[in-house]
C-alpha cells in the first residue's frame, strides 16, 4: 500500500511539473500585464508542434529543440503584446477576455487546418525508459521534464528578484504609475513579461513532446489545470503557481488512486474550494498585491 501511495505521489509531482510551467506563464502575464491569457494552452500546443516537426524532419531531439521553441515563443509573445494586448489594456475586462479567447480559437483552428486533427507522437530513446527505485517507477522523459520545469521556475524567481528588469517587472505589477515615475518603461517591461510567459509555454510543449501526443486542441488538457493552479496559488504569484501546480498534480493522482479514475478533477476542485474558503486570495499573497 505504501508503495502504491508513493507511486501515486511521484506520478502527481512529475505531471505537476508541467502544470507548473503552464501556470507560471499565466500568472506572470497576469501579474505584470493584468491580462488573463486564455490562449496559454495553445502556445503549449505551438511549442509541441515546433518540437514535433524539428524531430521528425531534422531529427532534433525534443529536449534540444527547447533552444528553438523558447526563443521562438518569446518573440511571438513580444509581438503579441506589442500589436494586440497593448491595444486593449485599460479598456476594461471584456475586450481582454475576448482578445485572448479569440486568439485561442484562432490558433486551434489554424492548427487544425495546417496539421489536421491527427494525434502525432515521437519516439525518443528515453520515451519508454524508466528508473526503478524499489517498487517505484519513474519515467525518464517525465523526470527530465520535471527537473527542467523546476530549473526554469527557479531561474524565473531569481530573475524577478535579482535583476533590474525583473525588479522593474515587479514594480510595474505593483504600481504601474509609480513605476513609470521612477523611469520604468511599462511597454518594455510588459513585452518582456509576455515574452517570458510564452517562452515558458513553449518549454512546456517541448518537454511534453517525448511522452505526450500533439493535436490541435491539446492545450486545453493543460490549460484547465494551469488556471486552477493559478487561482489556488494566488493570481500573480510565481511561487504560488509553482507550489499549487505540484499540489494539483498530486491531488489529481491521489484522487484517481483513492476516489476513482473519473474523479481526479473532483479532488482537485475540492482542494481548490476548501483552500479558497479558508484563504480567499489563494495560498500566497504574492508580490502581485
Amino acid at each position, binding site marked *: 500500500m505504501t508503495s*502504491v501511495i508513493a*507511486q*501515486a505521489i511521484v*506520478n*502527481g509531482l*512529475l*505531471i505537476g511539473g*508541467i*502544470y507548473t510551467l503552464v501556470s507560471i506563464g499565466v500568472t506572470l502575464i497576469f501579474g505584470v500585464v*493584468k491580462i*488573463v491569457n*486564455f490562449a496559454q494552452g495553445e502556445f503549449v500546443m505551438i511549442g509541441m508542434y515546433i518540437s514535433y516537426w524539428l524531430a521528425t524532419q531534422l531529427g532534433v531531439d525534443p529536449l534540444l529543440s527547447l533552444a528553438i521553441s523558447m526563443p521562438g515563443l518569446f518573440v511571438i509573445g513580444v509581438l503579441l503584446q506589442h500589436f494586440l494586448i497593448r491595444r486593449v489594456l485599460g479598456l476594461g*475586462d471584456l475586450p481582454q*477576455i*475576448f482578445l485572448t*479567447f*479569440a486568439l485561442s*480559437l484562432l490558433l486551434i*483552428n489554424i492548427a*487544425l487546418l495546417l496539421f*489536421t*486533427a*491527427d*494525434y*502525432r*507522437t515521437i*519516439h525518443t530513446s528515453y520515451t*519508454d*525508459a*524508466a528508473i*526503478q527505485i524499489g517498487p517505484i*517507477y519513474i*519515467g525518464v522523459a*517525465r523526470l527530465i521534464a520535471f527537473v527542467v520545469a523546476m530549473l526554469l521556475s527557479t531561474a524565473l524567481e531569481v530573475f524577478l528578484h535579482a535583476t533590474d528588469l525583473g525588479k522593474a517587472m515587479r514594480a510595474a505589477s505593483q504600481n504601474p504609475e509609480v513605476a513609470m515615475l521612477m523611469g520604468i518603461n511599462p511597454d518594455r517591461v510588459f513585452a518582456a513579461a509576455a515574452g517570458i510567459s510564452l517562452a515558458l509555454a513553449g518549454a512546456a510543449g517541448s518537454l511534453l513532446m517525448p*511522452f*505526450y*501526443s500533439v*493535436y*490541435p486542441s491539446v492545450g486545453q*488538457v*493543460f490549460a484547465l*489545470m494551469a*488556471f486552477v493552479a*493559478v*487561482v489556488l496559488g*494566488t*493570481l*500573480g504569484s510565481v511561487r504560488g503557481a509553482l507550489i499549487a501546480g505540484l499540489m494539483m498534480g498530486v491531488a*489529481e*493522482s491521489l484522487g*484517481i*488512486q483513492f476516489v*476513482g*479514475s*473519473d474523479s*481526479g*478533477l473532483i479532488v482537485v476542485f475540492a482542494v481548490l474550494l476548501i483552500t479558497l474558503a479558508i484563504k*480567499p*486570495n489563494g495560498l500566497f499573497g504574492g508580490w*502581485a498585491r
Partner: protein
Amino acid sequence: MSSSGRVFSKGDCSRRAFFKIAGGAVTTGAFAASAIGSRAEPAAINIGALYPTTGNFAQFGQDCVNAAKLAVQMVNGRGGIKSLGGAKLNLVLSDVQSDTTVTRTETERLINRYSLSAIHGCYASALTLIASEVAERHKVPLLTGSSTDQLNRGGRKYTFTPFSRASQFAKAQLQMAKLVGSEPKVAVVFENTAFGTSTSSGLREQAPGEGVEVVMFEPYSSGFADAGPLVNKIKASGANMLFAVSYLNDLILIVRTMKQVGLRIPLNGGSGGSVHPDFYKNTGADAEGLLGVAHWNHDIDTYAKEVSAEYQKQYGKFIFEYAGGLVAQTFLIAEALEQAASPDPQKVRDALAAIDATKGNAAMCPGGRVKFNETGRNIYAHPVGVQWQKGDLVSVFPKEEAKAPIVKS
C-alpha cells in the same frame, strides 16, 4: 485582488459559452453548403453524413468523411441508382463537432434544409443516439455502425444497425481472453462516455458466464494528461489481463506507461482507438500482439479488401473498422433506393426494413448477410476479433473466420 478573482471566473464561464457559439458559427459557415458530388440528370439523391471532424473524435471523423466520399464515388461510378434512371448519390456532409448539442442542431438543419433520403453517422455512440432521435422524429432512415444497444430500444423505426451490438462485443472479448490466458483475471478500465459505459457494463455482466474474473472495474475521464495514476491502480489490482475501452490518445498513453512500469499483461482494447491505423503509427512495436474487437475489419472478405486497397491508395492507410462499415452502409442505402425506386425517405425506410443483402458491398460485414429485425438490428451480425500482427490488424476471432491464428503475448 478579489475583483481580479471575479473577472477570472467570469471569464472561464463565458469562455465555454462563447466557444460553443463561435464554434457553431464557424462550422456552420464552413460546412453549410459543402455538398459533394455532381448534379446530373436525373436529380441527385441527397444522403446525409454526420461525422465529428473537429473536437475529441476529429481524427476518426475525418476518416469517416473520407470513406463516405469514397463510397459515394463507388456507387456513382457503377452507374448510380438504376431504378431511378441512373440517379447519382449526392453526399451532404456536416461536422457535428464531437458535441451532442451541435449534433442535435446539425441533424435538424440537414433534414430541414436538404430533402435527405437517408443519413449515416455519427461515429461516437453518444452522438449517434442524439442524431437517431432527431431522424426518428422527422421519419428519415439512419444507418449507423455505432454499437450501443440503446439504438435498438425505445421503439425506433428508422434506425438501422447492420453491425454487431455492444453486448455482442463483450461476449467476443471475453471468449478471446480465454484464448490468450488460462485463468483470466481482468481489469476493466473504460472512459466514462456512452461508448465506454455500455461496452464495459456488457463485459461485467457477461464475465461470470464466460468464466472470466473481473478484479477491477473502473471508469476514468478521457483526455487525461498522464496515464500513470490509472496504470498504477491497474498494477495494484493484481490483474493478469487488461480490457481498456478507450479512444486513441488515452490508449496510447496507457500502452506506453504500462511498458514503462514493466506491466506486461495482454491487452484487449475493444473497438475505439485500438483498431485505428494511427494507433500503430503512434505506438509501433508496443502495439504488437494487442487485441481488439471490431464490428468490421478490412480483411473480412474480398469486397472489404478491395475497398481498403482503394482507401490506402487515396489516403495512405488501411480503412479502419467504422469507416469501412459505413461504405457497406452506403451500399445498403443504394440497394434500398434501388428497391424503393424512389428517393422518398419513408419508402427507403420500408425497403431497408425488408432488405436481405447476401452479396456484394452491401453484405460486406462479419456474418456476410444483412437482414434487419423489428428493432433495426442485423440478425446475422457478429463482431470480429482482431490482433496487431507485424503492423497489420488481422482478423483472429471467431476461429472459423480467422485470417491468422491468435498469438499469445
